[in-house]
């Protein structure tokens, strides 16, 4: 493929996925490292031939990002063991504006409740609802059997519904 054509293709891919990937990776390792990981992921996209297309592009990008992030976390936990825990689940880089309406309060509660779920459930829910991946893609990205993803998703949504029910009663 000609380089100029590939550049156009990369640009479209970058504009489509970079914001979501950055948000996703930032939750794993923080904003600074996320920037580098996302950059490297797209650099990698320059290199692969044939490039992942169609249904494969999103899981490919998420897989590369996620593994880089996990590697980084492992490395950090070795080097900065006492700080490692801080980085497990950083808070969102910006919290949505709180408005006094009923639904917004409920919605904010949802995010807080999401944060309290076990990491496995939280991760599949985020990959699904923040990043729009399918069960199959989530299974590929997280390296879990699809049945596990299905069960995590079911439990996660169940817990959130229960939590919302308790909060509103």
């Amino acid at each position, binding site marked *: 493929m000609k380089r100029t054509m590939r550049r156009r293709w990369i640009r479209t891919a970058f504009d489509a996925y970079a914001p979501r990937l*950055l948000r996703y990776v930032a939750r794993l390792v923080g904003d600074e490292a996320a920037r*580098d990981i996302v950059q490297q992921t797209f650099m990698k996209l320059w290199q692969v031939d*044939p490039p*992942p297309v169609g249904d494969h592009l999103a899981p*490919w990008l998420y897989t590369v990002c996620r593994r*880089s992030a996990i590697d980084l976390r492992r490395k950090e936990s070795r*080097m900065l063991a006492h700080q490692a825990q801080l980085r497990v689940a950083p808070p969102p*880089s910006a919290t949505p504006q709180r408005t006094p309406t009923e639904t917004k309060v409920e919605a904010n509660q949802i995010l807080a409740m999401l944060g309290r779920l076990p990491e496995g459930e939280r991760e599949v829910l985020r990959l699904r609802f923040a990043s729009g991946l399918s069960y199959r893609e989530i299974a590929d990205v997280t390296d879990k059997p699809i049945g596990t993803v299905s069960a995590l998703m079911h439990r996660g949504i169940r817990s959130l519904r229960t939590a919302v029910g308790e909060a509103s009663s």
Partner: protein
Amino acid sequence: MSLHDDPRLTAYALGELDAAETTEFEALLANDPAAQAEVDAIRSMAALLEGELSTEADAPVDEALRADVLAGPSKSRGWMLWASGIAAAAAAFGLFVMSANDEPDAASRLNAGAAPKSAPVFLQGPAEPEEKTPRVAASVASMAPQSAAPMRHADRAREKATALNLRSINRDSRFADGAVVGDAPVGGYDPNVALPPAAAAPATRAARPMQLAVGKTAGKKIATGLLGRGDAFNADPAGRDQFIAPPENPFTQPTLEPLSTFSIDVDTASYSMVRSRLNQGRRPNPASVRIEELMNYFDYDYAPPVDGQPFATHVEVASAPWAPAHRLVRVGLKGKMVDRPRANLVFLLDVSGSMSARNKLPLLKDAMSTLVDNLHPDDRVAIVVYAGASGLVLDSTPAKNKRAILGALERLKSGGGTNGGAGIQQAYWVAARNFVQGGVNRVIIGTDGDFNVGTTSRHALVEMVEQRAQGGIALTVLGFGMGGSGGGYNDATLEQLADKGDGNYAFIDTASEARKVLVDQLDGTLVTIAKDVKIQVEFNPARVAAYRLIGYENRRLAAQDFNDDTKDAGEIGAGHAVTALYEVIPTGVAGGRTVDPLKYQRPKPIDPTSREMLTLKLRYQPPTGGKSTLISGAVIDDGVQFDAASADLRFAASVAAFGMLLRGSPHAGSATMDAVLGWAGDALGKDEWRYRQGFLDLVRKARRLR
């Protein structure tokens, strides 16, 4: 095991089951109302989550990062992390990585610990020789030290996130779709698939109009009828509707012109337009006010025909409320009732940010309200929307509850990203729940092409659409505003879906197109019972000094066209009611003579003994065409006053007066909006679905504009 604990419950709600699993699971669901309720609850939670997470601020994508990425590998930095990412990818996507270079052991070496020296093989890339990309050795050397930066700076205060740019996400999501659309096998990468469609778009667009669903003759004819007339209702290419006002019919003396001939008209579009303008607090364009369409918007309680006639004719005469010395002649036709298949329509509407353009969502809403006006009362309509979140905004509702449907339409607002995958699942779910055996069951997608299948793989989606079509739920896709640089590949997805869904794909760019196509969709549900229905009235000069047909300006025919079966006229559908009003100035009342007496001709002999006011003649052809049939009868005026007339006549007269006021008609006499409120308020009849009540609301809105 209770379905409650079955993970398939969530998988089903999210559309993750394949076709066979779906069938199997739906069988289980059918006997378990609690589980059905849970499916809905799961979907609500999913929508809430999706909505909440999508409004979370994205991490900032700074221009420097973008520039670095677009510059390509030669400027890469932080390669150590990158290398480990590659190694990770190598595990999952070995074939991509292995083919990235010619060194068979590259991946394993990186995996082992990412020695800097192994990096260059990845950095070489597919650069064209002529581009003279700096080779990597240097950049590796200079970039390597930065690999530690992320760790050093990881605890820095985080940059403030920028607001999510919906427009750009929206546009960008096309890419995702585009990539998905191509159906390129993993190994066979077609650059055209994922590239912006600039080059391919013109061809696609040129081809689009040809793909419009051209209905069978009946559907097409009805569409023509509904759209009205090219001469009065045109839409320019930018989607702005242009109206050319036909002058109102003047009073005519029967001594000069005894015959009044016109085609019936079952359009109601003008009422929708007037309503939408008034609801926006704006005065309707007088030229858009077509009084016959306002009158025909409403149902009238005319008795259906007996003895196998296609329609019944009901004539009533009373005084005109705005000019008590004048007489109103109301001609009402009622088509026979025919059992036709009921329709179960589920609209899946894209309300993402890009749909807010005036040639998209507003057009769709307008067309849908026209459609709803034309549905049979027992047809059902549901509305599912998709954007950042997807959800059911209107559960399946009988079309006779027009108010609820129109209310839901009014409330639709655009905003948010696009995720059609979840939406289409839900739309089919609603359609399946309200399935009409032997009827028309159809999901209708309205989108501008940002159909991000998102959470569902495209393959599974196509399979589901196909399977649903076999189960009797068809799919129609209406594309909006897909001209310009946007079109391209998503077109292909949508078209493929429609194709598999046993449906049609139509591109809609103007209001007139929207109405036409939506009514074409009704092809299977509307039954024409007579076509080319023409009315000819002969007035008796002994009783009538002058007459005037109210409205129908564009439907007037020459007297000789009445008996000419080659002259087209309007259709009447099953159960349709058509109303026409004449305003008549009786002989002996001032104002009847508008033209001086003729000097060289004597009026034809008049039978002074005839009490007949007029003779009404109707001509129609069977729906399949062929020789026309004539019905005729004489009408005698019994001198009934307006107050004593039927509620139907009084209401039709009120609507006519309202139309005349909106048009600024010189014939409106003593009519005012207040007077219209009074006349119509006394003529509501049963008004089971509150259409007439809705009319009162409109009159009040119009009154405030004065």
